């Protein structure tokens, strides 16, 4: 191969730069997000595992049933507790009272920017 002396060090430098984030953090994923759980309720409208992975699908489902099919009905599936509204502002955020401590915690970590709050109004942060 021609120019082996230039190519090999180049490749090594390239590989080093590309994997920089991994070895710089020593294989550590950083401090994990700890979203604040509501104090007044034990169960959410769906199991925690499902909410963790698929809350966005559920929110879309709520949005579609409420806006397009006018089905605002209560959701009763969580441990006998009746939740009144399929609504972000009037439902979810009544228990999860802080956007900063709940939503943003993971969203910032995962660098996702949902557009919910462009229109919907976040609850007043208490501190």
């Amino acid at each position: 191969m021609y120019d082996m002396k230039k190519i090999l060090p180049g490749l090594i430098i390239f590989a080093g730069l590309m994997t920089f984030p991994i070895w710089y953090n020593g294989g550590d994923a950083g401090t994990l997000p700890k979203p604040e759980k509501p104090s007044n309720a034990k169960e959410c409208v769906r199991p925690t595992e499902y909410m963790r992975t698929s809350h966005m699908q559920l929110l879309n489902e709520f949005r579609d049933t409420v806006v397009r099919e006018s089905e605002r009905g209560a959701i009763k599936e969580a441990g006998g507790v009746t939740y009144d509204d399929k609504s972000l502002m009037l439902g979810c955020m009544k228990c999860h009272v802080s956007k900063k401590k709940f939503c943003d915690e993971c969203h910032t970590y995962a660098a996702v920017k949902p557009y919910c709050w462009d229109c919907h109004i976040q609850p007043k942060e208490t501190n």
Partner: protein
Amino acid sequence: MDSKRRKFLKIAGLGAIAGVTAPMAFNSLLKGEAFASGGHGHEAAEHGSAHKDAVPQGKQYGLVVDVKKFGNQPGLGRKCIHACHSLHNVPDFGNKKDEIKWIWIEKYENAFTEHSHYKRNEELHKMPIMTLCNHCANPPCVRACPTQATFKNKDGIVMMDYHRCIGCRFCMAACPYGARSFNWRSPRGANELGKPFIKRINPDYPTRMRGVVEKCTLCNERLAHGKLPACVEASNGAMVFGDLNDPGSAINKVLSENFTIQRKPSAGTNPSIFYIL
């Protein structure tokens, strides 16, 4: 060599003919019809029945506006507008060009352009005509919308799905009543003096964002909880709300007892807002 080419051409030709005719034959068999002309006739028949379907089905909410009552009680119109706009976080951009309106006051000659204004009494010209989305039974905005962001819901309300609106404003061009407003600026913002466009945000109702069209949704969120639309509630009986397709409803009683007119009936939109003059 020659025989091979001959064979190839034969097979290719047969293949082409089979490829073209087989799906055609298959399709017409599927429809259970004779060949050729059947297809077009079927389509036309389908279209015809869709247009004939004028028998009202399901709910069609509407309003009767008693213009005289609004004329006799100065300030009532403004009260209704305030009730609606403060509830729904409707921004006030402070200029006519950017104006957002869900319900507003129009002059008689502007609201009823199709009616003769010749020698109409002066009183009528001074009357405040409350105008809002007509929630037409045959809404042109819904047909114009490319994303189905505006649609007719099961209560006959012409709904807005702001999640879907791409801000193309076709619906605004299609609406003969000017009932739709576009957010040229962010409603969450403030003017150069720092005065917010929404004076007091109602935390129970979303705002809109820049680049979407908004309009009256006949308070579907209140109806769902068994409440009357905000303007009707604030109107002190000058507006009557109800289901136009329910023969026993209060609104049908009012309609049967009074002479009412609609805005631009010749547009063929079947507006659901009626006016007692």
